[in-house]
């Protein structure tokens, strides 16, 4: 009888722990899924596959936490796993149906909007072109930095050192700044 009680108490404790864990992952999912989805699209995944991959990433997070993995920065962990999983999905997808977000086309279209909005879109389009001119590694570092990851987390996601991340980010910023200077030069002329 005593043994049964101990088992029941233990089961109750485990259940409560599991529920807390699920709530934690669900909250993270709701907060972060759009960012991860966008990152995976930028990585070149088809929208449907990106959405599936997002879900997969959060289930892996749940699994890892349940196994007792000590995850200091869940956001960093999520993007690292999303990056690695995304690359695998993209490799499978490449042969079947490569995806191009076609951002430039989308940004360049719509000419019937008010002038201010048009100018804003033009600015985003110019920045997008400058962004596309970066090396892949610079783009990845910058995108992950925009998502709020620290240098060591970005390095961990991309398999490079934190100092290399700093270098890539610096080069990216120099090129983007150069692009902005050129744009403002044009506007002044």
């Amino acid at each position: 009888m005593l043994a049964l009680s101990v088992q029941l108490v233990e089961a109750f404790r485990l259940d409560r722990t599991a529920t807390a864990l699920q709530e934690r992952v669900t909250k993270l999912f709701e907060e972060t899924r759009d960012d991860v989805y966008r990152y995976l699209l930028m990585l070149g995944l088809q929208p449907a596959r990106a959405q599936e991959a997002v879900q997969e990433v959060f289930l892996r997070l749940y699994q890892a936490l349940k196994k007792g993995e000590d995850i200091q920065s869940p956001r960093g962990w999520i993007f690292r796993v999303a990056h690695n999983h995304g690359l695998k999905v993209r490799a499978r997808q490449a042969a079947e149906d490569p995806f191009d977000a076609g951002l430039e086309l989308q940004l360049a279209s719509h000419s019937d909007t008010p002038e201010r909005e048009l100018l804003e879109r033009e600015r985003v389009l110019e920045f997008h072109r400058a962004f596309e001119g970066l090396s892949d590694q610079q783009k990845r570092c910058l995108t992950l930095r925009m998502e709020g990851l620290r240098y060591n987390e970005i390095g961990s996601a991309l398999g490079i050192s934190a100092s290399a991340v700093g270098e890539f980010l610096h080069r990216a910023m120099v090129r983007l700044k150069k692009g902005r200077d050129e744009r403002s030069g044009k506007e002044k002329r």
Partner: protein
Amino acid sequence: MSEAVRRKGKRMSGFQHPGEDLLLRYIDGEIAGWKRRQIRRHLEACWQCRGAVEELQQTVADCVRYRKEIPAYLPAPPRAWSDLAGEFARVDAAMAGEPFWKRFVFPVLKPALAGMAVLALLAVVIYQFEKAPAVKAAVLLQRAVVAESARAAAPHAIRIRTRNASFTRATASHDPIPAEAERLFAEAHYNGEDPLSARSYMEWHNSLESQDDPVETVPDPVVPSESCYRIHTVPASGEVSGATLLLSTADYHAVDGMLEFRDRNFVEFTELMGSPAGGGNAAARVESPVRPSVPSRSDAVVPGASASISDQLAVYSALHQIGADLGGSIEVSLASGKVMVGGVGVASEVQQRVHHELDSLPNVSIQFSEPRAIPAAALDNAETARAASAAPQTRLEDRLGRVEFQRFRDAVLKSDETVMDRAYALRTLARTFPVEVESGLSSSDRRMLRDMLRDHLSHLSKQVSEVQSLLQPSLSAIGATVQARGVAEGTVWQSSVEDVIRASQLVEVRLSVLLGVTPAQNSTSTQLPSDVLTALDDLRLQTDHCTSLISQ
């Protein structure tokens, strides 16, 4: 402040401007402690650097705006986000679905297995201790600090040596030291007031994010019958590439130390035997014998040494930073104990940038020369060749129209030129650092080399895609197709780079014939568009293969 000065960070008007990279790390909160305070103080005083920070912040703001705006142009998720709750149950079930024996037997055996694991671990530890006194650097430093505190603080003289200066001072002195040494200690976040002490080394050691620091026992450099612990620390990041401290095994007192920097600078601090403290006068000359320095690696830069392959790599890296390793106009070689840098007809602003980057490096000699005038007849011949080669381009020109074709040709040739620049830069590295040379490089040098290679390959891959996307629509429209071919499977990156070069040269030759830049050697005009696409595809595959080898 010029752009180049701001990017690299140079001493101006008697104080040090942090480089733009450092400022970026600063605003990103990636610099901590003493250095962060130093930059903050500098920014308070320096309008120029504040301006540089503001410009960086504007670019950051552009990025933030871009991130905010871009979702509006991206496709929304095709389905509503599903509830994870059901999926959690699936994961739980899968995790619970481990083999029956595992669930039943493992809890019973778990304590026993854990006990066995502990015993095995103990056995390994005991074996290690018996085999060699593998002392951990952190433990050793801790002991040395305790011993240092217990000793009477009798000041003695040490000699501090940098690339350009050598001076003596008393230990733990507050006297000023030459600016170069002060700057180096500051860059390293190392206590320059008392460099030759276990405490200073330990404080620096503990501030590192991660490091590798093997300890070995070596003979005392001055009294070979005695021995020293030699701690060599290789930080994973930061300005310092390696640091060494020698501690006497008898009483743990520090006898010699050295900090080596990624830009090849160094600062060495050595105990002067039997010398009084000398009053801490930085200019004083002390004749006492000096312990010989113990370089951390065989090819470390020491004053007076001739140039090494490591110096040559540093030159390539510096040229890479300013993009001067592209275009093949600058040649780098090792000769007469120096890294010789030169080129013919290099643009004057490029020459200036090269001087700016390399003048401070040791054992480097720079010499540029002007090209000889090309005889007019040679130019005439080139024009004739161009005219004679017009045939294969006709179909494209007919299709696109003359003006559009010229625009198309210029765009393709420009992209191809950048492809060749990258390919030749890769070849230079492959031939300068063959397998046997690369294997002799230190881990930080090897990392620097691989980073450069990855950067070149990433650009190359992008540029090949660019040429492909320019050509594919027009050539497909006139019936061109890609012929499937195998890829040469080099097993080391050096041989794979040669394959990349062969493939890119083939692309260049075929493209220039297709676009009427050079005459066709034989009649291949019908097959040529397909040959061009095939050669480009080969180049892409070779590049991918080489990239995968670099990443191994």
